[in-house]
């Protein structure tokens, strides 16, 4: 844990995201963005993770993250995703979706484009009619947002109005959205349903609905396996991690009792999907490792995730069926580690890219671990 650098930033962090690396990049990621919440003056900030081994601005050895630039944001930052190297899409609790541009030459941020009433309630009794936009996902240039009003919006980065809006897509709050395929999205809501929407079709109905057996516990986050598109992971209000196979059945394949409180984010590692990360309101961040040969550390990951090299090494050991779907506990050992030794307040967000992990907490601190698999 000596490789974790922490920084107290005087704002509660609701989202952290690594800036995506250019396609042929060899070095690990070093720039990330954070969004704050519950402040009178919320901010989007861009940070540099600091160089390992080099003395930074203050002569720090371990490269404490330092602020590059920030900008004021109206409302809590509910969700955030990088659209490309320079632009980041931010969802606000006021129902606004904004694209910010990071100008790297003079290290400033500016608001590029704004969709002001992307999410709203119709009733005039509520404060400004705005409903929080709870989730945003991008696949340049398309942007999909979901909100507390049960609405799904499809935007294009260059167009002023929404390309498509599905009103009342859900009678409850949609908590998160992710792309299943380029034309299909997955949403999760507060009555425990996972829905697939086909954007090619004009009808405003989901093409498939999955739900948990038993209590309809709200689902808060969803992520799809990077390589095997039928494997989906969701996290619920009771801290349970569910793995679904959407090719078959309407119920999850496995339910893993994880956290003691809401699971806020779940992420498959983008280049090494045998690793899954979850963070929760109970203050813990878990690393789920199903790589069958746990002792052999994938050292290839240091060089920016050369997945071809890794596959040739691993096909000898792994069967074709992903370890996530197999429910034979004796055969596959899953190693689960809590990466936070002294947990206090909620870990609201995490992001993982290459060998680097960044997470933010309600204790107003951000943590960067740049040697995740060492």
């Amino acid at each position, binding site marked *: 844990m000596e490789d974790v650098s922490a920084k*107290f930033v005087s704002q509660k962090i609701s989202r952290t995201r690594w800036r995506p690396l250019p396609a042929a990049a060899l070095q690990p990621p070093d720039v990330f963005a954070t969004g704050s919440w519950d402040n009178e003056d919320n901010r989007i900030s861009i940070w540099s993770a600091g160089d390992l081994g080099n003395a930074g601005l203050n002569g720090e050895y371990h490269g404490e993250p330092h602020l590059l630039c920030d900008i004021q944001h109206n409302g809590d930052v509910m969700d955030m995703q990088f659209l490309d190297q320079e632009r980041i899409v931010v969802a606000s609790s006021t129902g606004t979706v904004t694209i910010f541009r990071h100008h790297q030459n003079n290290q400033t941020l500016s608001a590029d484009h704004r969709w002001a009433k992307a999410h709203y309630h119709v009733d005039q009794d509520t404060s400004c009619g705005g409903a*929080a936009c709870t989730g945003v996902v991008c696949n340049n240039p398309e942007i999909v947002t979901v909100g*507390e009003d049960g609405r799904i919006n499809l935007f294009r980065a260059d167009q002023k109005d929404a390309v498509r809006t599905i009103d*009342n897509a859900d*009678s409850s709050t949609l908590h998160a959205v992710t792309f299943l395929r380029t034309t299909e999205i997955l949403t999760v809501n507060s009555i425990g349903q996972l829905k697939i929407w086909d954007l090619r079709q004009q009808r405003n109905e*989901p093409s498939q609905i999955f739900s948990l057996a038993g209590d*309809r516990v709200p689902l808060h986050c969803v992520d799809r396996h990077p390589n095997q598109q039928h494997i989906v992971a969701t996290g619920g209000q009771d801290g349970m991690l569910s793995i679904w196979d959407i090719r078959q059945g309407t119920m999850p394949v496995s339910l893993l009792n994880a956290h003691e409180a809401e699971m806020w984010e779940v992420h498959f590692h983008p280049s090494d999907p045998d690793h899954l990360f979850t963070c929760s309101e109970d203050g813990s961040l878990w690393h789920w490792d199903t790589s069958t040969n746990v002792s052999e550390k994938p050292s290839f990951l240091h060089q920016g995730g050369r997945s071809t090299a890794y596959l040739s090494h691993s096909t000898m050991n792994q069967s074709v069926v992903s370890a996530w779907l197999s429910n034979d506990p004796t055969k596959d050992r899953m190693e689960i580690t809590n990466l936070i030794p002294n947990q206090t307040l909620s870990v609201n967000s995490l992001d993982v890219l290459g060998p680097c992990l960044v997470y933010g907490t309600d204790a107003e601190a951000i943590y960067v671990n740049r040697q995740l698999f060492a």
Partner: protein
Amino acid sequence: LCFPCCTHSPYSQAFLTPSSSRVFVVRRDQDIYIHTLRKLFNESHGIFMGLQRSEEELAGKSRKAQLVQVSKNYRSVIRACMEDMHQAAALKLGPAFLQVSILSAMELIWNLCEILFVEAATAGPLLLRLLDWVRLHVCDVDSMVREVLSSESPSKHKLFWNVVDVFVLQGRMDEARHLLSKEASANPASMNMYKILDDLMKKMPVPSLGNTQTLTELELKWQHWHEECQRYLQDGTFASNPHMESICKILLGDEDAILEKKELMTTWYHFLVTRLLYSHPTVKPMELRFYAQSSMDLFLGGESSPEPLDLILMAAFEFEMHQVIKECSIVLSNWWFVAHLTDLLDHCKLLQSHNLYFGSNMREFLLLEYASGLFSHHSLWQLGVDYFDHCPQFGRVYLELHIERVPLSTEQKALKVLRICEQRQMHEQVRSICKIMAMKALRNNRLGSALSWSIRAKDAAFATLISDRFLKDYCEKGCFSDLDLIDNLGPSMLLSDRLTFLGKYREFHRLYGEKRFAEAARLLLTLMTAHIAPCSFWMTLLTDALPLLEQKEVIFSAEQTYELMRCLEDLTAGNPDKQKFQDDDVETTKVEMLRLALARNLARVIVKEGTVEGS
């Protein structure tokens, strides 16, 4: 160094601008809004929690070491905050100057309390700790020291002797000797004197941290050394060099000689420690008070009166912990310092005996005040929760009252507040929060959200309300809204009767749509006879039965038809006086049609059942 509270009070602003008509935002606790101080609150919260959770079973030395480490952590947090403020001051962001000096004073006081109370240094190590303390905190001379040391030939610098004196006063013998050697090499005439002085300084006995010598041994050695110094002074060895002579006098603990260097010491507590170093190195903790009082009197010399900081330090030297806390509470504008310090002292078991007259003890009182202050902040309220948790007597009550007043602007924030309440079994608050959120959702027509909140609170009454809303919508529009919700209720259907009815009613529609008429009929009947359906809905149900009755194929058995008829009679018989009911054409037509359909069905089914045996 410490500033009175009224500069932070909102009232002072009112006096400054009497004639303007403005709205003043009154804030309970001004300090918590200062940006750089937020780090202080967050980091110290982490340390506080660590302390509460640390093992109490560790006894003796290891526990003490643990507590000293906690104290050091707190201090390093204060120092980090001071550094940030310095940087902010450089960038001219915010009222930093005031805060830096206050923080510096806080760290000074805390450090002294750590030495005297937490670590409870004994005679011997006590002096060493006090020396460290002085060296760390009296920094006014640092720039002068740097200037001389970095000059080309330090011994020629006009402030050279001042710096040597500073080193001697702070007991930094090696550094003093090092500088003197430069002087000696530059001035060979005084080589003899230098050698003797250097020797004296080298030989000076100091307390050691380890147990290599007992106090008596030290005292003996020191006595010898003191006499040796005395001899050299009386022999006039240093007569030709007044600087060296004064150094020798200082080594002998001559108060006048030390007092001459007032400007180099800047504070009375520096004077105190220097005095102790050169006259009573084996001072015991309990003896400190006498020396402290006399040092302050001698140093201030009646010219200036003690400032609040001086009084606090004096109270510490006198081991009056409560006085220290009381004075700090009065002077500082925020409860942070006293709350955390008192908590630490309480963990050292130093405050047990003192109970305040209004019931709770001092630690709890201060923590409650501090946490209440946190709750008035839009964001730091989350830290306050943990502080209330560790106030055994009144913490829970305070928390219950405060948590209800946290504004719930988004669902996510409501979820966090709810989780806090659930973890502490605050059922009242859980119910109230869920009701608020469910009502909001209902008003926004988000029936699914409203249902999800009532499920969380296990609020049957609200679930009934939501179901009634669905049913009302159905009656008005003729079809169900939000089918994705009703079709997938699952076990939550059982939360309230009305909800169960809703689910089953929808199932009836589904069965009808799938043309599974017999099952649909059975279900419909169960809904009425098992009294799950609300009375107001019976008419609708009976009307739904009409198409089933009119089918070519006979669906309802004789028994079932009798049941239906009974239901209809119950319904119409229950309202004999209702003029409206009878005058309403639509209603009467419906009833008549039903009666006709039921009669026809009965006829058919009797024939059918009578004809084929047991079918």
